[in-house]
């Protein structure tokens, strides 16, 4: 049972990977698995989630700055030390 569950979980994961890449999910798993009603049903939900996520905009920096302005005064070293100056905290990760 555990093995079967693990297989279905892996198959679904491969389908989600394909959907996120914009590929045909049916090509990511075996034809038999792609034909299963369960997999079709779960992939339908996955497609909705991807579409919903796409419609959810990211912060353009305004909220990051506003929230930091509210949180920073609560830090022990308020006004924040040079190490925790706004530019450091307000630079998005990876920027």
């Amino acid at each position, binding site marked *: 049972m555990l093995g079967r*569950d*693990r297989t*279905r*979980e*892996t198959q*679904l*994961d491969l389908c*989600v*990977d394909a959907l*996120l890449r914009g590929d045909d999910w049916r090509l990511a798993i075996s034809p038999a698995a792609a034909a299963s*009603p*369960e997999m*079709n*049903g*779960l992939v*339908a*939900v*996955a*497609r*909705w*989630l*991807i*579409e*919903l*996520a796409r*419609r*959810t905009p*990211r*912060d353009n920096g305004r*909220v*990051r700055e*506003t*929230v*930091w302005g*509210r*949180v920073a005064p*609560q*830090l*022990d*070293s308020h006004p*924040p*030390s040079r*190490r*925790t100056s706004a530019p*450091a*905290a*307000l*630079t*998005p*990760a990876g920027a």
Partner: protein
Amino acid sequence: MTALAVERSPHLRLVLEAGARDDRWFADLYRDTFDSAFRFAVMLTHDHHLAEEVVAEAYARAWKNRLRFNGRSELAWLFAIIRNRAIDEFRLRRGTVDLDHVPEKEDESPSLLGELAPEHVAALRDAITHLTDEQQQVIFLRFYEGLSHDAVAERLGKNGNAIRAIQFRALLRLRRILLGVSHARS
């Protein structure tokens, strides 16, 4: 104090880690997590203004409770705080929140879910709020952030198999909830 002593004493390690949670640690946490934290809050609240409120209070709470963090996954810890804060907001606005009494249906018609129409968006958003804490975290990182299951596992301090299992159960639950809603409407 030697590295060996720290290695042999989990308690000592926690004390040292807790001591390192200064304002610099917090600024780094904020820098590294804000974008995800805010979008996670939007996913839960469906409201940008409310999400801003929730995330501001969550970071304030994270700072206040930083010594209670167990050191496994900062992001999972922060997400849990955001979720609790969002639930508090819903309680204030709706009176009560009952996460257990959600209509669910066994899968009878796999083709029931077609394209995501405007009327489906609210149902899907609402269904997401009925997932467990860890299911919401995985759904967010996987679908909203587009991370691989390995990357999600790393962010949440879990292994890849656990992430795949959580993802499977989350999608199954969402489908059952959505079918339940659909049946209730028809």
